[in-house]
Structure formats: C-alpha cells, structure tokens
C-alpha cells in the first residue's frame, strides 16, 4: 500500500492552516481590500498637500488699495511677501492642529499648499476711481481691489451705526479661496498695523505685549513621575492602536466565519472530516487566519510606525507597549476567531450567523463606545472595571496601556492577562465543542439554548 508520513496531527493542522492562508491572502479581494487600499489611502493622504500645491497657479499681479490715508499699502506690501504668507500659513497650521511638535513638517507643508506669491501693491487715495479699478479686477488686470474706509483706521474703528467698519476685498471669480483667504488675513494685519501707527503707538511693542504665552502642561503622578500632556498620545494613539487590533482580528474573524459556512454549504466539510478531526480542522483554521491577521497587523503596524516616525513621534511607542500590544492582539484574536469559527460551524448562512454573533458583538463594542472616557481616564473606575469583562478585555487594555501618561498598575496588567487567557481557554473549550457538533449539523440553526446543550453533550 502507499507510503505515508506519520507525523500526525500537527501535519494536518499546518496543511489546513497554509491552505486557509494561501486561499485568503492570494485572492484579489484581500490583496486589494486589505493590502492595496490602506497603502493607497496612506499615500493619498501624504500626497494630497503636494497635489493641491501643484494644481494651484502662481499668484502674480497687482493689488490696488483705495485708502485715503495712504498708510495701509506700505504695511500690505510687507505682509504680502512670499515669506510672510508662508509664515502665516505655518502659524495657522500649528495653531489649528494638535501636531505642535510638527513645526518643521508643517512649515514644509505650508510651502507645498500655497502657490508662488509675487504681488505688487498700489496705493490709490482717490475713492472716485473705485469703479475704474473694479472694472480692472473684472478683466483680471488687477489681482484684487481693497477698499479701506477711513473709519477702519480710526482708534475706534466703527461706522456711524456703531458696527465695525468693514474693509471690502474684490477679487475675480477664479481667484482660489486659499489665496483669497491668505490675502484677506494679510490685509487685516496691515490695516491693524496702520491703525496702531496712525494712533501714534509702536505696533511691534504692542504686539509683543499682547502675545499669549504657550502653556506646557505637565502631569505628575502619585509616584512623582512627571510627563508631558499631549492630546495625541491621550486620545488618538489609543484609538489608533485599538482600531489596529480590532480591524486585523475582525477581518480574519469574518473570513473564518464565511469560509466555515462555505465549507458546510458546499458539502466539502464531510470530505474534510474524513481526513482530519474537527479539532484539527478548527486548530488549522484558527492558525491559518492568525497568520492572515499577523500579516495585516505587520503591514498596518509598519505603515503606522512609518507615519509616527515621519511625524517625529516615534518615541510615543515604547518596546514594552509593543510587547503588551502583541499579547493583547493574541488574546483578542483567540476570542474573535473561536467565536466566529464556532458560529460558522453551527449555521447554514451569514444571515443566520448574525443572530448568534450579535450578542457577543454588543460586548465587543464596549471599548468602541467607551473610547473617550477610557482614554481620558485610563486609570478610572470605568476603565478598570471594563478591562475585566471578557471578551472586551484586550481591546480595553490596549486603550488603557496606550492612553495613560502614567503606567497602568502592573498587577492590573498581569491580572488582565491571566484572567483574559483563562477566558480564552473557556472560549476555546466551548467553541471546540460547538464546532464538533455544528460541522455535521444541517437544517434549522441552533438557538443559544441549543448551543449550550451542544457544549454539554459534545
């Protein structure tokens, strides 16, 4: 009779695992959906500023300022230089974003999102020429026409009704909104400078006096550990890490669910069970999709690390944090995969699967719903309690570990790992029993009560 290898169960488990891996990652759907799309999105976000800058035509021409005092133009010339416009943009970026540490990067970004500036400024004291100048804007001979009412330069810049005296900026229809906004801000600053000068004061010293100081928030723990306050580390980083684990485990879990249902529906299940035991099949499938999950985690993790490094924030993720992330990833994958495989074995189609998966999914959405309060108070009562509810444990712990500006108590981390893996063992035990019975069942899907019966009888 035939020569046979006698390396037993592990050989079969690996054979199943590699088939699942190959037939998932080598499909167009996976390559495009899980690999190409994130890379495209990442590239698109990185390139978007450059693309915008490349598309904008250079701004070149004359701006006429109708101003009886004749003082605004000199300040406007200084404000409308390319350097000043870029500086304005840089200040805006650093003011509006949380990426305060990205000074260099935002400066570089400012230069890419603004077109080349070459603007000359003409002062027109004669208000009777407004119609003539308006026609020149219309025919695009002028870049813009600015009408500064005399009230705007007074110490009390309001009109007869007490409203703030408005400056009018007239630009051609095709003027890019970003360029128009930059000119608007430059002119506003020029008018303020002119007003201060006319009032006999020194703008530079007044400006210095009015400068609001930056605040360095330092958090000090009960143990005396002091660290920087950073909203990105407290809010966005935890969400990013939790989503990384969520997406990678659930994508694989979904594949596991659908392939198990397919194997039942296409009747290939019984053929497989003639060669492997239900446990070997379950282990092979879980192992195969673990490799799929790890591949995705590797790719997304590398993209994320690259992004953090590019933003000079690589030090936000410590090796200890990465080690804990790996531990919680394994735990979350074990929970999700066991659940999906056992549900897939028990039902005949995806619709039936939804009714069984929904209750567990509700528990798993706890970390998503509680992201904000947990991230803000990672050592609070809510976060502490939520981190011991299976199967949400790994997701909540990832939020806490990455959100906290101070370390989570070591005992809590240790207990969450031991407690979590104890629950993983229970899930695996119950999932394997359901899988053993479910793979051979046809017809009406089981109720949760029947699933419990399967666990007892298998």
């Amino acid at each position, binding site marked *: *009779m*035939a*020569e*046979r*290898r*006698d390396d037993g169960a592990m*050989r*079969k488990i690996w*054979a*199943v695992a590699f*088939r699942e891996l190959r*037939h998932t990652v080598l499909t167009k759907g996976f390559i495009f959906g899980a690999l190409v799309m994130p890379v495209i999105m990442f590239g698109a976000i990185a390139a978007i500023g450059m693309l915008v800058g490349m598309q904008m035509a250079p701004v070149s021409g004359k701006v006429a300022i109708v101003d009886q005092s004749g003082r605004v133009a000199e300040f406007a010339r200084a404000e409308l230089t390319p350097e000043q416009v870029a500086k304005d943009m840089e200040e805006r970026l650093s003011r509006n974003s949380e990426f305060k540490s990205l000074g260099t990067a935002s400066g570089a970004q400012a230069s890419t999102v603004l077109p080349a500036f070459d603007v000359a400024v003409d002062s027109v004291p004669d208000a009777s020429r407004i119609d003539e100048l308006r026609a020149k804007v219309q025919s695009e001979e002028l870049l813009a026409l600015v009408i500064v009412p005399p009230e705007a330069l007074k110490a009390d810049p309001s009109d007869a009704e007490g409203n703030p005296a408005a400056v009018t900026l007239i630009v051609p229809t095709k003027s890019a909104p970003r360029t128009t906004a930059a000119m608007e801000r430059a002119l506003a600053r020029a008018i303020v400078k002119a007003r201060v000068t006319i009032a006999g004061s020194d703008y530079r010293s007044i400006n210095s006096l009015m400068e609001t100081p930056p605040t360095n928030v330092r958090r000090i723990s009960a143990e005396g550990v002091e660290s920087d306050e950073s909203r990105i580390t407290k809010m966005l980083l935890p969400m990013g890490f939790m989503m990384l684990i969520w997406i990678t485990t659930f994508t694989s879990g979904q594949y596991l669910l659908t392939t198990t249902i397919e*194997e039942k529906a*296409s*009747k*290939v*299940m*019984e*053929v*497989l*069970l*003639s*060669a*492997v*035991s239900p446990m070997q099949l379950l282990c092979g499938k879980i192992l195969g999709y673990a490799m799929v999950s790890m591949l995705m985690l590797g790719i997304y993790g590398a993209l994320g690390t690259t992004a953090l490094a590019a933003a000079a924030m690589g030090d936000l993720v410590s090796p200890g944090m990465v080690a804990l992330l790996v531990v919680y990833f394994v735990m979350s994958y074990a929970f999700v995969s066991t659940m999906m495989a056992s549900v897939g074995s028990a039902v005949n189609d995806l619709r039936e699967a939804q009714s069984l998966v929904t209750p567990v999914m509700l528990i798993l959405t706890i970390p998503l719903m509680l992201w904000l309060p947990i991230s803000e108070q990672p050592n609070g009562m809510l976060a502490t309690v939520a981190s011991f509810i299976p199967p949400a444990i790994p997701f909540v712990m990832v939020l806490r570990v990455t959100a906290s500006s101070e370390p989570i108590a070591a005992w809590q981390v240790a207990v969450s790992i031991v407690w979590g893996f104890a629950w993983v063992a229970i899930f695996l035990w119950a999932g394997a029993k359901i899988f053993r019975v479910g793979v*051979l069942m046809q017809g009406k899907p089981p109720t949760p009560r029947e699933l419990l019966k399967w666990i007892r009888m298998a």
Partner: protein
Amino acid sequence: MTTAAVRLTSVRKRFGSTEAVRGMDLVVPEGSLTGFIGPNGAGKSTTIRMIMSIIHPDEGSVEVLGSDAIAAKDRIGYLPEERGLYRRMRVTEFLKYMATLKGVPSAGLGARVHAWLERVQLTEAAKKRCQELSKGQQQKIQFIASVIHDPDLIILDEPFSGLDPVNARLLNRLIRDLHAQGRTIIFSTHVMHQAEQLCDRIILINRGEKILDASMPEIHRRFDPRTVLVEPSSHDPAEAARLAGLPGVQRAQWIADRHMAELSVAREADPQVVMRAAIGMIPVRTVELRKTTLDDVFVELVGEAMPASEESGNG
C-alpha cells in the same frame, strides 16, 4: 478464518431521543466488497460516520484495520453521499491538498495526481477551477480525492448517483480494479442492482439494526426464487389478471416492455406447481422461475416501504 477490516461490537448511537444505531455487531472481511443497503434513515450513514471516526459511538467499540477508528483514518478512503469540493480551488491543487491531509508525501504527488486524472480521462481539467467542471466531472474528482492516498479500506456512499452510463461504467471498472488489488470496499447504496452486480457480501440495515449479513451466494441459497415470469402467446395484458387467480399467486403484474406477467408466489406455495398451473391456464410462449434478486430480498425483509427498483420497469 478471514481477518476483519471493520469490526463493530455492540455499537449504539443516539441523537437526542432518536436511536440511530441499536447495538450493531458487524464484521466486514478484509478484501471483501461489501454492500451496505437499507432504506432512508436506516442508520447506514451513521454507521459509516462512526467507521470514519467522524462521530463516535455512545456505546460499543469500532475497530478499523486492526486499530481504533481514529488511528486508521489515513488508511481509509471515503466518498460521502453529500460530497463537495472547494469551488474556487484548482483541480490539481484540491487533489494535492486532500492527499496531503491523508499523509501522502509531497514527493511524487504531482505525478500521482496526473496518473489518476489520466485514469478517469480528466487530464484536461487539471488546471481548471472545480466550479468550472460539470457535475459528472466533479464526481470523478471527488472519487479520486477518496482514493488518491491508496487506502486499504474504501467507503463509497452512493458513488454512482448523478453519473451518466459511460461514466458509471468507468467508475464500476475502477471499483473492480481497486477490489482486485486487494482493497476492502464498503459500498453503500439504495440501488439494489448495483449492489448485486458489484458486491460479494451484503449487509442490510434497517431501523438501526443489522437484519441481514451474508455473502451473495448465501443470499441466493437462503432466499429461494419466488417470482415466476410468464410470457403469454397472445401478449395480452389481460392475461396477468387471469393468472393472478391461480392458487399460490399473491400478486401479478404486467411488465409492458417485456410482454410478460410477473407472478409473486406465496411462501407456503411451490413455484413449480404455479408454473405448471400457468401453462395449463393460458397458451404461453415462455415460463421462467426468476433468480432471487436483492430487490426481492430487500422487499421481503424491509417490507414495501421502499419503492421498487427503478430498473424493474414494472408496467
């Protein structure tokens, strides 16, 4: 004494309140081609699944190829009744995968797959995806998947269903070849003439119990012929009704395509007497005492629950 390829001892299996197999004792001799027959829900598939260690008995023991069923798994080839393929997998890849699961070393696996595809005249399908094959082609691939690892015991559950006559003949020849090589084959079917034609031994299962376990010659000896075929000279179907009135005739029916009346003889009557009486009653062209078929045995033992075999052509 022959060695047992399969030995079930006092095996019981329940599913909820239903007892699918009730204290089954059976032996499938090594090298035999044994037919598992029985009506739907008789317990054949449950018995086979226990031999395959897909499910396990609640009571009793299952011994396969001299060891327990799990240990023998790689030495068994199984073609289930509800068979399937990975639709998007390519034929060669699917067969290699199944062979790998059954412990066939990767060296020479490609050649082995090719040789089998050649044997079933499907070499052109090697690179196709399973979903691109016709139903008959898929069935041949499924058959290869069950024997690619050269099993010592082959279990075929309704292997001919859905095959056209040409492919059925090809499969018949392959099964005979495998049997001639010394493999033990268990052949489960509803189609009695296929079992009768192929098997050297029959195990009839009904309501979870074995009610017949004998070799074909033994069956022919034990169940003496009780069907008389009469061809009236007139070829008139009305003659069947007249013959039904003969003493000892339980039932008579007209077989239109053969212009014959089929008389079922009661157990207490002598078929020879019925034959002579038929000749005395109407002018006849031929009278014959038909050899006992498995169909007859099945009907006698199981009752009239199952419709007559489709090949009898009763009119």
